[in-house]
């Protein structure tokens, strides 16, 4: 497949896409937690269009081969933080449900942590298997 962008240009496109995607998701999250904080002043759909275009460009660009790293303590701490954040957001959004809100948000927080660990360790296992086969 012929790449639209190569080497450093591809790296810039990839970086641009990542920054825009994270910005969009953060604003979307903010809008969900505090309705109107973003949408009244900024149409998120316009940002979404830019994210999609950047994403398409990134897909058709050259990607560097990443070196596989073993998940470290930081990765697990990050997953824990995401789980706690997920728990807090879901608790806030479902607080009208009373005691059920606690159950839903605790289960959701645990699921976020477990699934993230599963994906993280699964990726690592796959990479290890591949490298062993190559040897």
């Amino acid at each position, binding site marked *: 497949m012929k790449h639209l962008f190569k080497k450093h240009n591809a790296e*810039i496109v990839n970086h641009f896409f990542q920054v825009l995607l*994270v910005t969009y998701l953060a604003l979307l999250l903010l809008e969900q937690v505090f309705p109107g904080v973003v949408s009244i002043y*900024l149409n998120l759909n316009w940002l979404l269009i830019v994210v999609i275009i950047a994403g398409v460009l990134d897909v058709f660009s050259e990607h560097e081969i990443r070196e596989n790293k073993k998940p470290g303590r930081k990765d697990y701490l990050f997953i824990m933080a995401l789980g706690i954040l997920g728990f807090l957001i879901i608790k806030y959004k479902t607080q009208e449900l009373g005691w059920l809100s606690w159950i839903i948000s605790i289960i959701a927080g645990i699921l976020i942590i477990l699934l993230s660990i599963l994906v993280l360790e699964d990726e690592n296992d796959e990479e290890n298997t591949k490298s062993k086969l190559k040897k």
Partner: protein
Amino acid sequence: MKKNKEYKKSEIGKPKHVTYVKALTFIIPALIVLYLVNVNFLIPREFNYFYDIGEKDYLSPASRISVSKDSVNLTSNLVYFNIPVPRNSETLDIQVKFKGPETLVKLGARDREEWHYFWKTIYNPSLEFLEGKEISSGIYRINDALSDNPNEFLNQEGIVIGSTIPLSPISTELNYTESKFTINTSLRGSHVFYLYLKDSLRLNLKKQDLNWYNGSDELTATLSNSSGDLIQAITFPDDGIVAIDKSRARIIEGIMIQQNLTEGVYKLEFSDFDGLIRQFDFNTGKVVVVDKVYLADSDIFPVEQKPSKIYTSFSRNSELSAKTWHTQGLQELKIENKILRIDEITNASTIVLAKGTYEISSEKNDIIIEVPSYFSFTQESYFEPFINKIVSVNNDPEWIESNLDYLVLEPVSIRKEDGWNVASVSFSLKDKYLKNNELSMVFNIPEMTEESEFQISVDWINTTIYKPSIFGGER
């Protein structure tokens, strides 16, 4: 350390422009965040939303409107629309361009989670006759023998004040004695009670849905203090029948309890619903209903027909009106030794009564009785909640002149434009109920019923919402 070196090596190998461009991309989220912080917190802003009614479906429900070329006609009462309201907004200025027959038009802004609106009158044809009677902004002296000092009128005892806005009248003080008091007269529609309470309210209530119309029939009761501050709201559920079903529905019992009340007058408001309240049990013997009572122990409803007796008292000459919607409600209403004949449906029969206390008896019920005073269900339970009577306003100049001493209306500006009226009114947004950052508004034309044939055309609605900065400051 090794990893760090590798990272540095790879960064060094890159052309400088790549590093710069990558750093520059972070400016995008930074600018967005700065912009959002600025507009949300730092700068005061005005948001203008213009609703050109003929262009889009802003008004609902569709069954209560009809669309003409450039406007929408309100064909039934209670037509709703929503306005987006940014967080921490302070005021809403609203202009409405409309035309129609000379009738009272109100605009409501939702102020509670349950169905409850804060009303402002945007058009009142009765205002024209009030020219020269205004003693202060929105305060009119109807009885020329009384003081024209706007600071004094609430302190005068025994007078009748008609008001479309909440006032803070002076409560009366009674000797409270706890007693079980039961009202087993069935009531239909919304009712406002005043109760004299000490320490607590305990209300046992029996409701029975009529299911004459589609939809669920929840009944909401709200308890507030005499200044109108909400203390508790409770909803008594539907009977589970949401379709039309005129058979006798089961009776649902509910309870409302409120502790820690200081001794005094409290307002208990029951919402309108498609059903009857069959019985009330209060823990106080001082209970009155404000202005209007709809007696419903009639065989047109699924209840046993039985005679009803209510009591009222006037501190000046006052008009009593009685109306029924059905032929079954045509009757002779006995008011002490006088008879008021109700011999046609829909139109109210009236009688002027002198100062005094009256017993009103109805054999057939299905009748709405209105007075500029209070009703009680026994002689002993009657009390005057305030040193003066605060009643709702009837949109009839003659009624205003013969029943009120003062009239209080919210200030509203109205101008004529090519045969249309353009009314402007302001709402405070501090205590309004927002759902998904939207405020529900509603047009209320009290004289518009399902039987009435007139309509109100709305051309546009222009709203301006003011949001101050977190540092405050005047508009």
